[in-house]
């Protein structure tokens, strides 16, 4: 059997300082900060580390698709991504800072762009409106059919599929007990804190962090809290390696295109077009008409893409609360239990959100406000 999968000795009575259910970016980030602060932390996932949304998203690190409220968080997270190897024991997702453009092709989109740029700029993002001519100077590969663009000089991207490999050694070095392939089926509150029921036996912890992404609804349900989470099945497309055709991070005013070319020449196309699937069956199948729509938008923006071949299309499961803002903070009515997730463009903000929640779990005042879910609740009657 592979030797690296499980670390840490655990007798039947051992009680971790904190158990984190979910080994995605949010869970790993929280766990890393807690462990470095001296806590004995266990991270559990039914699958492999960062195998869900965290490992299959478009890797866009942009200010231009983020909710205005998340802007301060995204700015700080951007810095953390660019310096990942420094604070993550050499872990590297090949993060690069690049200029970002969000473009408008119609008058309606131009109006949307102006509005959004104004809101984002007010929230602190370094975003400016530029003319079509200026946009084409910044991105020579851009179509001349663009009307207007908003420009952020410090957007960027990373290779999301490297995220798991980037965090794993840092977690293990910090003494985190990482249990991949160990599904948590339920949680019971008891004298010690919490007992997590898993197929490989119970695991006890004084504190609990629920970081299950789209499955957060089921998780908080274990503790009697009803928090509806909407599941999104995002489609992504990648080409084979091609000659350089673009160098910015590109989007459209509506937010429905994300486009970038990596150093190896592959071009990644996304934008939240929906495929077929759900939380219980997982991400199941690509919708061919949405594949076509997404690719048409991309080729409209960067005409040189017409020369490419599509090599792979895949799906990721994303999550959203009723008001579109994150679910980060205490589990209402349950001391020592926390949740983190449903961030929507959570990859960009991820490292900073984990750091913030860890501050709260450690009993400190987080640097920036969390997003407690009391605002969204329908508490189950006991």
């Amino acid at each position, binding site marked *: 059997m592979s030797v690296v999968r499980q670390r840490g000795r655990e007798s039947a009575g051992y009680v971790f300082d904190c158990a984190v259910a979910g080994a995605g970016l949010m869970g790993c980030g929280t766990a890393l900060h807690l462990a470095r602060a001296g806590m004995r932390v266990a991270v559990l996932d039914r699958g492999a580390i960062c195998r869900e949304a965290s490992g299959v998203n478009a890797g866009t690190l942009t200010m231009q698709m983020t909710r205005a409220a998340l802007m301060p968080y995204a700015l700080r997270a951007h810095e953390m991504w660019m310096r990942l190897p420094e604070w993550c024991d050499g872990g590297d997702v090949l993060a690069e800072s690049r200029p970002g453009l969000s473009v408008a092709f119609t008058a309606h989109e131009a109006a949307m762009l102006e509005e959004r740029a104004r809101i984002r700029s007010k929230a602190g993002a370094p975003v400016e409106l530029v003319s079509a001519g200026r946009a084409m100077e910044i991105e020579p590969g851009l179509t001349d059919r663009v009307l207007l663009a908003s420009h952020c000089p410090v957007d960027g991207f990373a290779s999301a599929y490297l995220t798991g490999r980037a965090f794993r050694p840092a977690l293990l070095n910090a003494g985190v007990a990482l249990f991949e392939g160990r599904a948590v089926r339920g949680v019971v509150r008891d004298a010690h804190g919490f007992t997590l029921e898993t197929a490989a036996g119970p695991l006890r912890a004084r504190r609990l962090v629920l970081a299950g992404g789209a499955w957060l609804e089921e998780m908080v349900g274990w503790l009697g809290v009803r928090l509806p989470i909407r599941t999104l099945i995002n489609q992504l497309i990648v080409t084979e390696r091609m000659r350089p055709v673009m160098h910015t991070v590109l989007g459209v005013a509506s937010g429905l295109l994300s486009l970038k070319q990596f150093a*190896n020449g592959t071009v990644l196309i996304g934008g939240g077009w929906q495929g077929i699937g759900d939380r219980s069956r997982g991400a199941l199948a690509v919708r061919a008409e949405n594949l076509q729509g997404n690719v048409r938008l991309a080729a409209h923006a960067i005409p040189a893409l017409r*020369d490419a*071949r599509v090599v792979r299309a895949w799906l990721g499961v994303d999550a959203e609360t009723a008001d579109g803002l994150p679910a980060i903070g205490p589990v209402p009515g349950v001391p020592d239990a926390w949740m983190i997730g449903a961030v929507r463009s959570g990859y960009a903000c991820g490292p900073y959100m984990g750091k913030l929640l860890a501050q709260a779990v450690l009993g400190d005042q987080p640097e920036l406000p969390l997003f407690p879910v009391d605002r969204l609740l329908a508490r189950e009657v006991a």
Partner: protein
Amino acid sequence: MDARHAAAILARVNGSLRIAGIARPAEVEFSFEGRVLRAPVGESLATALLASGVLRLGEGPGAPRALLCMMGTCQQCLVRVDGRLAQACLTPVRAGLLVQAA
């Protein structure tokens, strides 16, 4: 030794990899990296290049471009045909094809 085998040996001695005793359509001209080559129309481009002594089709990211599976699965025989990326083993030779390394 039968006549067919003798013809094959003769063909080999004369330098052709094309097996004798097979009827083929007329040859046409095409070019690879500026070199003018000839092959029967309809022969696969992969075969035509091989028969013309071209084994190394270009440089790929992880290995040289070359023939491997001959059936369109391995993606190792990629070339540019009239500017478009194509698999040589799936491309029939036509007169005037402009082929370049991919």
